[in-house]
């Protein structure tokens, strides 16, 4: 971010801006290696909502695939996707799929770092094969922040928990794939389980948040004010609604 602002200042008339961003993309998670059934089932889905799938960028995830995939089958699958109007952009999977991705002309996106570590705790930092079935409750890498988080700042703990030891000001945003712990007053927005982890929770010493959210279910300050406001609280997801309980 800082490098970006420098560039901006060095040159009065920037030709481009470098921006970090989070985009939502449809992920096709392959479970079995059966191109014919894949084609049929995909055609069904596309038939239900043709406009939704028209020129939609997709990422093909191999995380859940038990078997290896050869280049010919991959090419076949990609052809089926393109015929249905989808635009495959990348493969998501372990390092072993890198050659396959290159052969198919796609980018390889590695799954979250925390998961790799969890399956092979003794492994060296060398690229380890991805787990076959990632489980939400695995130990994950956490991020610890000791400075106050100011209005306008955004902190994201990718693939793990976020721990904040200072105050979180109104107008700031905390995001984590796992849990969020705040030991100062929580006055900004806190979104736990942003990639759909429904087990994620938010813990805080003083609940004064503008918004709290777990896996997309949220509550705004107006609703939060009624219960445990400015008190220690933990927020979890029960069914489709957020439960706020004293710490």
């Amino acid at each position, binding site marked *: *971010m*800082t490098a970006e*602002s*420098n560039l901006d*200042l*060095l040159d*009065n008339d920037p030709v481009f801006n470098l921006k970090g961003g989070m985009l939502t993309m449809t992920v096709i998670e392959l479970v079995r290696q059966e191109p014919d059934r894949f084609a049929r089932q995909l055609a069904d889905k596309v038939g239900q909502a043709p406009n939704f799938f028209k020129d939609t960028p997709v990422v093909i995830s191999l995380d859940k695939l038990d078997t290896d995939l050869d280049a010919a089958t991959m090419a076949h699958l990609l052809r089926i996707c393109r015929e249905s109007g989808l635009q495959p952009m990348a493969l998501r999977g372990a390092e072993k799929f890198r050659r396959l991705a290159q052969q198919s002309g796609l980018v390889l996106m590695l799954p979250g770092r925390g998961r790799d570590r969890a399956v092979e705790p003794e492994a060296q930092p060398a690229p380890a094969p991805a787990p076959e079935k990632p489980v939400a409750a695995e130990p994950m890498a956490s991020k610890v922040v000791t*400075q*106050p*988080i*100011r*209005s*306008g*700042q955004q902190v994201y703990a990718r693939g793990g928990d976020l721990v904040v030891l*200072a*105050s979180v*000001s*109104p*107008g*700031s945003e905390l995001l984590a794939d796992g849990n969020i712990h705040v030991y100062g*007053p929580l*006055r900004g927005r806190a979104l736990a389980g942003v990639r759909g982890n429904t087990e994620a929770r938010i813990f805080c010493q003083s609940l004064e948040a503008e918004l709290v959210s777990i896996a997309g279910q949220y509550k705004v300050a107006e609703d939060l004010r009624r219960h445990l406001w400015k008190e220690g609280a933990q927020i979890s997801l029960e069914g489709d609604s957020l439960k706020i309980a004293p710490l």
Partner: protein
Amino acid sequence: MAKIIVVTSGKGGVGKTTTSAAIGTGLALRGFKTVIVDFDVGLRNLDLIMGCERRVVYDFVNLINGDSNLNQTLIKDKRSDNLYILPASQTRDKDALTQEGVEKVLEELKQTFDYIVCDSPAGIEKGAHLAMYFADEAVVVTNPEVSSVRDSDRMLGLLSSKSRRAESGEKIKEHLLLTRYNPARVENGEMLSVSDVEDILSIPLLGVIPESQAVLKASNQGVPVIMDEQSDAGQAYGDAVDRLLGEEKPHRFLEAQKKSLLQRLFGGR
């Protein structure tokens, strides 16, 4: 070693220029060679507050562009031999400032001055960014009011992430200066209290400047309010400068003044 102090706030109209003038003058009166730099290109005000508007020949942008040199551009204050003003350009906009240009000028000023006080424009865009980028210390001017506090909070975030010190892993020393404080209205619950603001911003309190008639009067006369030693605001600024220099002083003007019996009888203010 010269120190660069930025006076900033995010929000406009909270008293940045008044504070820059007061702190700069205060430092000069205490014997430090001081220059106040107006970064508010296009909305030049510092010269008015300092009462030197009739002596502006060249400005900050001229200096950056090399149209003038430091001696030609700096305006010497008539009240103190230690005090100089570097006025902003009124005819240009913030894009006339460049990071290299600002750095070059500040480096040159560092050779001769003990303190360089940068009067930041409002907002968080280029002018404000450049004003704080090279700073060693920051005085964050805040009114006891929610929007001002939020903007200050945003500014503190930028100070700790987008300044040269932050980029090299150091910290800018941050000071909170609460201005336009009215203890009577705080007691009535109409205004945030000192502790409310401290609680949200959690940085050390440099001073509390009471809301005062003296400030407007001083501005219109072109005299920094710190020169008005009879006034509460002038004294509060004096205390703030002493604290900036490391002195420990108790905070004054935090309590509403009780009206005397006579005042109550005649209802006078």
